[in-house]
């Protein structure tokens, strides 16, 4: 049988244990008698079958009779009086005396209600209990005084087990504490030398199954005076009022599960008592008492121990909380530091990473990564970026909560096994799920040994017929387990610190967004002003320009005869310069308007666009004798027809212009790069461009040649082409070999 199989079977075992209906066993322990009574006349509906031993009457003699068959009127009244208060338990126990043939029998009467019946349990007691009570009151008082002087959780636990041992006289008293997975650890123990120590040992959650824990939470005290008892059946089995077995959850005599008895036997115990310790309404731990011989503890002493346990649990909770106080204060101060750093830095992420303390301190992690809008910033020991990206993807798809944390990442995310040295523990804080913005903290693997009280995997017996029998474990010897792939656990205040950081980050992001919106408003305003400026510049600058232009012409017209050729040449230069100035102003205006005109997007057949461009340039094409090649028809593309036409215009014009070859050619086409976007190109065998200018040529008014070479130009054409392509969501770039030719590429979305 492989290890895996065992694991599976243990799981079956646990579920079986969990299903055992231990609250309705139909039997009680025989050291007392149980009655189910009908109110208000106190008719006996059910009774345990051990009445003859304790009361001298057979159950048949009692069933369906009134309780006064046993008790005198005075006693009945006493009992009825204690039924009035809502909380029956306050009156417990009632001292009852039953007259037998020869002598009086003294009992503790313990009352509660179950499914509409009144349950009365009688435990025999001796008559000297008055003194006993005061003695135990005294003991409890001494114990409380000692407990109040204790300063740590460990001290309190130790005093508690010692005092309970004093009061009860059990051989062994232990304080057993549950963790978040319901595994338990013995945190204090008081015992004689000769017994094996259990202190520090760990017990698996399956030792105390769910429904048993539920009973511990309802009924805080449980006594089994002698495990080797013959259970007393309840007659009749079903309650006549409900026709169901009697619910014995609150009964003090309830019979014990056979599995539990076997378990205790294996431990060498004959009598046991357990007292629940509750914290904030949850089971926190147990005071577990063991005795090797049978041992009975009267109800009042049990009650005193229970009281002690409850008082102590308050103390312990307070101590446990205060032990972390110092660290919590430190965390608070780190938190406010981080908020301060975030607000000081331009980028809040720098504020979280670049200072001391940083986000690692906040939750005591060894590595952290901030994933924000696809950028990854890390600090400390973290997995590689690719691993972080994969992890974020997994978290994004599988974890819906704002925060997710585990001390054993590989268990839920098997790929993390190879990251064990840095990321056995993970805490992931989601800032924005849709944007995949996360803060991740990592903790390395901490290999440690856990001391179990015996192998926690219950033994499995396969019987001859193939059925599986699960028995409680038999060994409680130290059994060591090495825990791998686990980090230190994340403490609740560390998780809270992370959650608080989340609100701080969101606040910061919102504030930055506000600032950005403000900047945008200002940018828009200054854009508008710039737009106005370009208009005014183009209009107002052109006026004096026209003057210069016109008057230069007038000079040539009017004085052409009197001035010499040199003079005329200078005037012609003047006219040429004014024209150049006008071109520059027009380009500037055109460029500044480009971003502000709405695109008129529609499916556009680019063959039409290119051909009308070529028509426009036909004169120059003919003059320069350029061979235009279009290897295959161009596709139809969703774009602004006019503007994309201008892009082709610009590129073709450049290709014509910058060519010094004897046989010039231009090729216009597109590259198959499915599905979208489509990459178009305009290729020539022209003069080419040096690598270092590939970027610069797209800058406005940046030219590569003097105005007298290659027919001049304003240096705005490519800038305009770039802006148009970018407005269409595309890119434009150049590839060129100096002296051999250039290819301009740009992308456009095709028609979907």
């Amino acid at each position, binding site marked *: 049988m492989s290890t895996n199989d065992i694991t599976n079977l243990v799981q079956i075992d646990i579920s079986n244990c969990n299903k055992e209906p231990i609250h309705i066993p139909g039997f009680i322990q025989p050291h007392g008698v149980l009655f189910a009574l009908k109110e208000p006349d106190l008719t006996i509906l059910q009774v345990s079958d051990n009445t003859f031993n304790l009361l001298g009457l057979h159950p048949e003699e009692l069933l369906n009779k009134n309780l006064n068959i046993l008790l005198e009127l005075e006693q009945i009244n006493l009992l009825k009086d204690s039924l009035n208060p809502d909380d029956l338990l306050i009156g417990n126990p009632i001292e009852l005396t039953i007259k037998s043939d020869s002598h009086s029998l003294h009992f503790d009467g313990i009352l509660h209600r179950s499914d509409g019946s009144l349950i009365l349990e009688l435990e025999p007691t001796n008559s000297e209990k008055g003194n006993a009570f005061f003695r135990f009151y005294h003991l409890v008082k001494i114990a409380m005084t000692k407990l109040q002087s204790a300063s740590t959780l460990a001290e309190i636990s130790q005093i508690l087990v010692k005092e309970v041992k004093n009061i009860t006289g059990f051989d062994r008293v232990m304080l057993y504490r549950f963790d978040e997975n319901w595994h338990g650890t013995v945190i204090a123990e008081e015992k004689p030398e000769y017994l094996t120590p259990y202190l520090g040992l760990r017990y698996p959650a399956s030792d105390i199954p769910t429904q048993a824990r539920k009973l511990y939470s309802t009924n805080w005290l449980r006594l089994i005076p002698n495990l080797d008892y013959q259970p007393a059946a309840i007659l009749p089995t079903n309650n006549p009022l409900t026709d169901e077995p009697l619910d014995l959850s609150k009964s003090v005599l309830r019979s014990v599960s056979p599995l539990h008895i076997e378990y205790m036997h294996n431990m060498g115990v004959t009598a046991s008592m357990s007292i629940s310790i509750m914290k904030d309404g949850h089971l926190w731990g147990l005071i577990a008492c063991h005795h090797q011989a049978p041992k009975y503890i009267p109800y009042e002493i049990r009650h005193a121990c229970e009281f002690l346990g409850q008082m102590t649990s308050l103390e312990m909770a307070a101590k446990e909380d205060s032990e972390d106080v110092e660290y919590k204060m430190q965390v608070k101060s780190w938190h406010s530091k981080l908020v301060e750093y975030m607000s000081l830095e331009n980028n809040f992420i720098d504020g979280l990473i670049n200072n001391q303390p940083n986000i690692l301190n906040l939750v005591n992690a060894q590595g952290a990564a901030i994933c924000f809008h696809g950028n990854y910033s890390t600090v400390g020991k973290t997995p590689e970026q690719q691993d972080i990206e994969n992890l974020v993807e997994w978290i994004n798809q599988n974890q819906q909560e704002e925060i997710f944390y585990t001390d054993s990442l590989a268990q839920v995310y098997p790929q993390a096994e190879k990251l064990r040295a840095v990321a056995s523990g993970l805490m992931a804080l989601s800032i924005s799920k849709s944007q995949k913005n996360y803060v991740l903290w990592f903790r390395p693997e901490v290999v440690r040994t856990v001391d179990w009280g015996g192998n926690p995997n219950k033994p499995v017996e396969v019987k001859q017929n193939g059925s599986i029998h699960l028995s409680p474990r038999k060994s409680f010897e130290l059994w060591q387990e090495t825990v791998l792939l686990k980090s230190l656990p994340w403490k609740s205040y560390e998780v809270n610190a992370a959650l608080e950081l989340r609100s701080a980050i969101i606040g910061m992001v919102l504030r930055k967004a506000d600032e950005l919106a403000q900047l945008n408003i200002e940018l828009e305003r200054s854009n508008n002003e710039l737009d106005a400026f370009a208009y005014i510049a183009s209009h107002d600058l052109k006026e004096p320009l026209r003057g210069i232009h016109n008057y230069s012409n007038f000079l040539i017209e009017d004085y052409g005869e009197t001035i010499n050729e040199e003079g005329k040449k200078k005037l012609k*230069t003047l006219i040429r310069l004014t024209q150049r100035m006008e071109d520059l102003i027009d380009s500037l205006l055109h460029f500044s308007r480009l971003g502000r005109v709405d695109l008129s997007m529609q499916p556009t057949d680019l063959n039409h666009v290119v051909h009308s461009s070529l028509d426009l340039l036909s004169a120059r094409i003919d003059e320069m004798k350029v061979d235009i090649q279009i290897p295959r028809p161009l596709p139809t593309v969703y774009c602004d027809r006019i503007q994309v036409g201008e892009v082709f215009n610009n590129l073709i014009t450049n290709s014509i212009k910058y060519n010094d070859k004897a046989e010039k050619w231009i090729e216009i086409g597109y590259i198959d790069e499915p599905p979208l976007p489509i990459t178009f190109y305009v290729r020539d065998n022209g003069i080419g461009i*040096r690598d*270092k200018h590939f970027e610069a040529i797209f800058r406005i008014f*940046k*030219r*590569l*040649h*003097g*105005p007298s070479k290659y027919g001049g130009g304003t240096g705005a054409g490519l800038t305009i082409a770039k802006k148009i392509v970018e407005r269409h969501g595309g890119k434009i770039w150049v590839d060129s070999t100096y002296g051999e030719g250039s290819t301009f590429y740009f992308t456009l979305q095709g028609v979907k």
Partner: protein
Amino acid sequence: MIGNFSRPLLVIEDSDEDFEALCRIMEKQSVANPVFRCSDGDEALDFIYHTGTYNNCQKFPRPAIILLDLNLPGTDGREVLEQIKQDEDIRYIPVVVFTTSSNPKDIEICYRYCVASYMLKPIDINRLVETIQSFITYWLDIVILPDAVNN
């Protein structure tokens, strides 16, 4: 007559009109220095390093002083300046910037690269003449320039 025949001046200037204005004023001052002109940055670097069309060292001597415009086609004046000042062999050549840009950033960058002077091209013709005359008088007459030919 101003200047020394053995101290060549290299003018890096893309505007024909500006260069003409400069030549006109130099002519009036009877400048003796040989004047070479490059109209863009790549050409200027070719000239200085005797590469490309300027590979004849006799015909195109290394300049004793450079008058540099900043906004040039292709490789621009700032890059030319950076290149000159990074090169141990030629960084000694005084570079005088002559530009329309009054941008404080440009001025700072140029002085960081240890230009000898930074001059603005004025629009007013009288101021322009004055500026160029001062440049000629100071740099070609008063100042002692390194001996380019023997270098």
